[in-house]
């Protein structure tokens, strides 16, 4: 019977230089749907949680979901699962574009990379033809040039390339894996793991078809979802018109847009780098990921006079070409958080992050931390190589390049803000959880997101439980951001539901309009499964607990489910949220209880049994 799985995985041993095709474990597929859940199950089964993330015992898994490559709206996603070198936790980074679907069209749900190569290589996939090739000619090059070269070398402009840039090669701890030049498996340093394996890129071309189990129902299901996505104001109008960047002004008005490394929660010049300003002055097109009917992706162009400003020499970058982004998170991290309001410096830095293969959130946040260290005298101009005052746009652009190449002070930045702040004796300047930097919502102003950050299995992050949807946007229901009550349940529900979305191959942004009652039927009619919404939530809970157990066994214990002192005690000084702190202690015990975990975040035997994780 035909369904939307290919049922095959590629196992690539980079130490041995071998490629094998295997059948996907059907039982696991049923237990975890695919994507994030399935790959995590493989990683946990095949590796030791205490392994060195950058050692060759760690594995790097690329995985798709059953809806990846189908016409289910937003069915573009692939995920990269590995042990994170930044956090030491499980890492699952998620990306769109065309790469994931192309992998399916080549006939694979998943690739497991194991071992490490002695010399730089890339993996070339053309349907059944899978070859490990020498990457000497592209090692050291930026992601963009790498993609162009590989398309040219492989002779197919429809090839899709996922690559690391110099940042991944140099094992920058927040380096990412970039596909289609502007889409990235961004957080937690998955690029460094790829770099540690000397794997420069994967180039894939597939010409095989993907079927669905019940076409008639599938088209009914997806048409219903598409209709909802079209009619919903957020996915039908707001995201297409302004992308995610529209949030800059929203969060700023709320007093929840952290600036100056969380010393403030508003940014006076937010308007200058807002979604509205970008749409009016820099935006040239919307670009969608594969099968996406929303098209939140921004494509911007620098004005002619801006292209000469803050030039750093990078590969073949043509500053006059259009490029992707910037998105909300990136804008925030590299502008307000660093006190910078230069939109063109921001766009350049964002492009450079993409080209060098680096997570702009962690980069921006680490630079902000360095700026605070600098202004506090912990770092001097000699050490930094330049003045690192908040607001220095030139530093923003220059330091991206130096960080990606680990040159000069960039070598310190490349370690992320947790290690940087410790190195310069001010660990309290690290603004994040489990060694990963916060994203763009002040957890003092928005209570629920604080709990989500604290309990997140991959460290501070907004994409595992985007409570902002409820607390700020009112989706699916409005809750008061200042209130702690109900946030434990909200966070748990979002965490579990997100696990399902991530495992399906859909983009989390579809949930601004549709929910599991729409998503689960699409999975079923494509994959030939018969999950109920409750089954799906159970799978989400299973994934969450599986990831959590991995972290516990890796030595990342409940004590790390916390927030920095500045967030818990340092009241917001000014603005509409003046005086607020995050009241994590009011939410965390309840959260543990709802999870069936004890005070140390250890799941009860019953819970483990109930979820089949024994």
């Amino acid at each position: 019977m035909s369904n939307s799985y290919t049922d095959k995985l590629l196992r690539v041993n980079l130490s041995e230089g071998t490629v094998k095709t295997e059948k996907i474990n059907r039982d696991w597929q049923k237990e975890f749907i695919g994507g994030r859940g399935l790959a995590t199950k493989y990683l946990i089964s095949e590796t030791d949680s205490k392994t060195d993330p950058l050692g060759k015992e760690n594995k790097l898994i690329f995985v798709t979901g059953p809806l990846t490559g189908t016409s289910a709206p937003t069915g573009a996603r692939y995920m990269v699962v590995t042990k994170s070198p930044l956090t030491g936790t499980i890492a699952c980074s998620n990306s769109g574009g065309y790469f994931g679907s192309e992998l399916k069209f080549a006939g694979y749900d998943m690739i497991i990379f194991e071992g490490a190569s002695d010399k730089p290589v890339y993996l070339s996939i053309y349907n059944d033809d899978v070859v490990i090739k020498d990457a000497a000619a592209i090692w050291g090059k930026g992601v963009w040039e790498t993609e162009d070269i590989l398309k040219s070398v492989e002779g197919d402009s429809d090839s899709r390339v996922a690559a690391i840039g110099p940042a991944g090669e140099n094992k920058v701890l927040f380096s990412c894996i970039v596909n289609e030049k502007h889409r990235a498996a961004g957080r937690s340093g998955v690029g460094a793991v790829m770099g540690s394996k000397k794997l420069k890129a994967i180039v894939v071309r597939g010409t095989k078809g993907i079927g669905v189990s019940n076409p008639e129902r599938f088209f009914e299901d997806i048409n219903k979802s598409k209709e909802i996505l079209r009619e919903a104001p957020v996915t039908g109008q707001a995201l297409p018109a302004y992308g995610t960047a529209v949030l800059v002004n929203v969060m700023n008005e709320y007093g929840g847009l952290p600036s100056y490394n969380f010393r403030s929660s508003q940014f006076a010049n937010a308007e200058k780098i807002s979604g509205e300003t970008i749409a009016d002055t820099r935006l040239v097109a919307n670009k969608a990921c594969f099968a996406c009917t929303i098209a939140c992706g921004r494509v911007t162009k620098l004005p002619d006079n801006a292209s000469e400003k803050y030039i750093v020499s990078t590969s073949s970058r043509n500053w006059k070409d259009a490029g992707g982004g910037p998105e909300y998170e990136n804008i925030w991290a590299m502008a307000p958080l660093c006190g910078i309001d230069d939109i063109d410096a921001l766009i350049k830095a964002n492009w450079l992050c993409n080209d060098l293969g680096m997570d702009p959130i962690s980069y921006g946040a680490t630079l902000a931390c360095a700026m605070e260290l600098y202004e506090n005298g912990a770092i001097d101009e000699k050490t930094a190589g330049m003045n690192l005052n908040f607001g220095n746009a030139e530093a923003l652009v220059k330091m991206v390049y130096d960080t990606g190449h680990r040159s000069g002070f960039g070598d310190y930045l490349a370690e992320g803000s947790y290690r940087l702040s410790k190195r310069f004796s001010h660990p309290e300047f690290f603004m994040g959880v489990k060694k990963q930097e916060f994203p763009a919502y002040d957890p003092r102003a928005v209570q629920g997101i604080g709990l989500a950050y604290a309990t997140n299995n991959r460290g501070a992050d907004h994409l595992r439980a985007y409570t902002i949807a409820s607390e700020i946007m009112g989706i699916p229901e409005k809750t008061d951001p200042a209130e702690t009550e109900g946030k434990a349940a909200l966070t748990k529900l979002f965490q579990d539901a997100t696990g399902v979305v991530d495992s399906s191959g859909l983009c989390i942004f579809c949930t601004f309009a549709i929910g599991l009652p729409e998503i689960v039927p699409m999975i079923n009619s494509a994959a030939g499964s018969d999950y109920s919404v409750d089954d799906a939530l159970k799978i989400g809970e299973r994934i969450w607990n599986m990831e959590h157990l991995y972290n516990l066994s890796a030595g990342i214990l409940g004590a790390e489910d916390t927030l920095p002192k500045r967030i818990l005690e340092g009241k917001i000084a000014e603005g509409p949220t003046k005086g607020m702190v995050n009241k994590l202690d009011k939410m965390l015990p309840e959260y543990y209880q709802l999870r069936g975990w004890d005070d140390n975040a250890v799941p009860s035997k019953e819970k483990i049994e109930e979820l089949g994780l024994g």
Partner: protein
Amino acid sequence: MLIKVKFFASLRDDFGKEAVCEVDQNSRVEDLFHKMKIPKDLTKIVLVNGKSIEGNMDYLLSDGDTISIFPPIGGG
């Protein structure tokens, strides 16, 4: 009394970025919307001095308030 009104995203197409509106004492948000002809169905988030009114259109305005009005927005 004078109220500063800030508009965002697509609302700027019709209302511009910012306006100052004079309303009577004891006016509610509802009254201001009425006076400025702001269609309620196009707005999703209304903040008064940065605080969400949580859908309460009867919220009483005070002189010098800043009101921020957003259409439905999403992001992440």
